[in-house]
């Protein structure tokens, strides 16, 4: 119940800031849309015409998930950096709920609030490309939730490291390209990537949205890897975050720079 109140407070804050700084939000959407247009134009102009449709569909799913990964994983790092600079991180550290619960609720609230933007971007890009993907909600939702759980785990790891390193902006800039790599590289090229967070999930969503596969048609091993990744990375994320929190308290690193 108390965690629900933490979550509600963070959803409300996220919503207020999104609404209050609407021009920033619109600018972000336009930037991503222009990026998509660039990729779309590239495939249309110089891509192989025989695989053009598939490639465009591929790009739509990948870039939507890249946006999602940026929102979930990268944003939490920036949030911690900002909180430390502002001087509010210590206040969060004084909450009897524990910082990790506040950070988890931040991850959840950011995802929930930004989800509307992601859906809008998905339909906008499908409309632009004239490629309508299979939006089978019943199949996508369970895979998406498990994928998001592994993303949250990665987000907590980033949050933990940001808490102790703080001047991590350069890494966060690079991280967005690492995330792009993880979302764009197909598993058929590098099967071992299935055990990295969210890669398997995105591959399965691609199967659903591009090839029309349903949830029941996936092999048990695919589902198992997906569940394993979710549990493993969330557990790892929590473990790393709590260790980083302990380290930060040992060294007195929760204050600003």
């Amino acid at each position, binding site marked *: 119940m108390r965690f629900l109140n933490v979550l*509600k407070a963070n959803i409300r804050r996220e919503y207020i800031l999104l609404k*209050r700084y609407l021009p920033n939000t619109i600018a972000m959407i336009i930037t991503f849309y222009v990026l998509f247009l660039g990729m779309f134009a590239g495939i249309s102009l110089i891509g192989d015409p025989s695989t053009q449709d598939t490639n465009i569909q591929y790009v739509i799913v990948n870039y939507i998930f890249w946006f999602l990964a940026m929102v979930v994983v990268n944003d939490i790092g920036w949030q911690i950096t900002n909180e430390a600079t502002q001087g509010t991180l210590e206040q969060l550290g004084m909450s009897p709920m524990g910082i990790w619960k506040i950070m988890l609720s931040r991850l959840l609230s950011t995802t929930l609030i930004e989800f509307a933007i992601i859906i809008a971007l998905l339909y906008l890009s499908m409309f632009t490309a004239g490629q309508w993907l299979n939006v089978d909600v019943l199949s996508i939702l369970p895979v998406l939730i498990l994928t998001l759980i592994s993303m949250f785990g990665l987000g907590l790891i980033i949050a933990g490291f940001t808490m102790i390193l703080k001047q991590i902006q350069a890494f966060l800039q690079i991280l967005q390209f690492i995330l792009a790599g993880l979302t764009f590289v197909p598993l058929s090229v590098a099967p071992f990537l299935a055990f990295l967070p969210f890669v398997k999930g995105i591959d399965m969503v691609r199967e659903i949205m591009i090839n029309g596969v349903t949830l029941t048609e996936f092999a048990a091993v695919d589902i198992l890897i997906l569940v394993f990744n979710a549990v493993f990375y969330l557990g790892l994320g929590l473990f790393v975050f709590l260790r980083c929190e302990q380290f930060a*308290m040992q060294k007195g690193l929760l204050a*600003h720079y």
Partner: protein
Amino acid sequence: MTQPIVEVKNLKKSYKKRKTKEIITAVNHISFTVNKGEILGLLGPNGAGKTTTIKMICGLVRPDSGIITINGIDNQDKRLRAQEHISAVLEGNRNLYWRLTVRENLEYFAGNRGKSRKEVAGQIEELLGQFRLKDKENEMVNRLSRGMQQKLAIAVAMLAGSEVILLDEPTLGLDIETGYEVRELLREIVRTEKKTIIITSHDMDVIQDLCERTVIINSGKVVTNDRVENLMKLFEVRSYAVKLDGHLSEEQHQLLLEKFPQLTYIPETYQSVLEVDLTQSQEIYDLFDILKLEQIPVDTIDRKTINFEQVFMKIVKGEKEYALSERA
């Protein structure tokens, strides 16, 4: 009987300097208690170790050794439970979200402590009234004056509903009027809400005005733990300014300096002043014996008043032990 709500026992914290790898002992085995409903001043010069101590009490920094209990709860073993009983304003107006309004800040911080908006609605109304922020409730924090931001930061700490509130420099950067208003608010909080407050401040007027007792830390150690009035008494009694009609001859000056080495002689146009800190009260008779013997006419005699800032400086310089031994 007064009951301690915060107990600090044998606390130690060292840091390793990143570049030189040199070990710095910020806090060196300090112990003190804070009683329920008390306003305690935690003082010390820059680098004395008070910020580290405060952060250890808040549970934000882990001590190397020693124990801190808040309301009987060990704040290392049961950190989150202990944090139910303590809130703090550590960096004043920087502890707030500047892009949220006054009300949104209050609701957000309450939410992060697991409280619903409904649960704190009444309390928020009360605090907005008490802190005279009602007409600014929908104003964004970055548009408030520093004084209002400071009051909001204290209101946020109050909303936590904890018994102990820790305030680091609560009047720093405030104008005289707002500083006074904040002092009055704090006094009211202790009187009506029965809160325990620990204050750190460089403004000794604030400490003298608000605190019943002070713990002074220097070089990581507690050098004084006493009531403010006791410390004032310890230093105030023996400083005198004796105004003379005319001037002293060189011989008379030397004679007085032999007996009172710390005497200051200030010649003026027609008169002169002798400023002297006497170590024992009977020395005043010795001074007047010399003046009488030398037939030096005395115009007036005043006991110099001492403020808490001077007391603090004397304690930090290590004059307390001297004063105590002389008194004994």
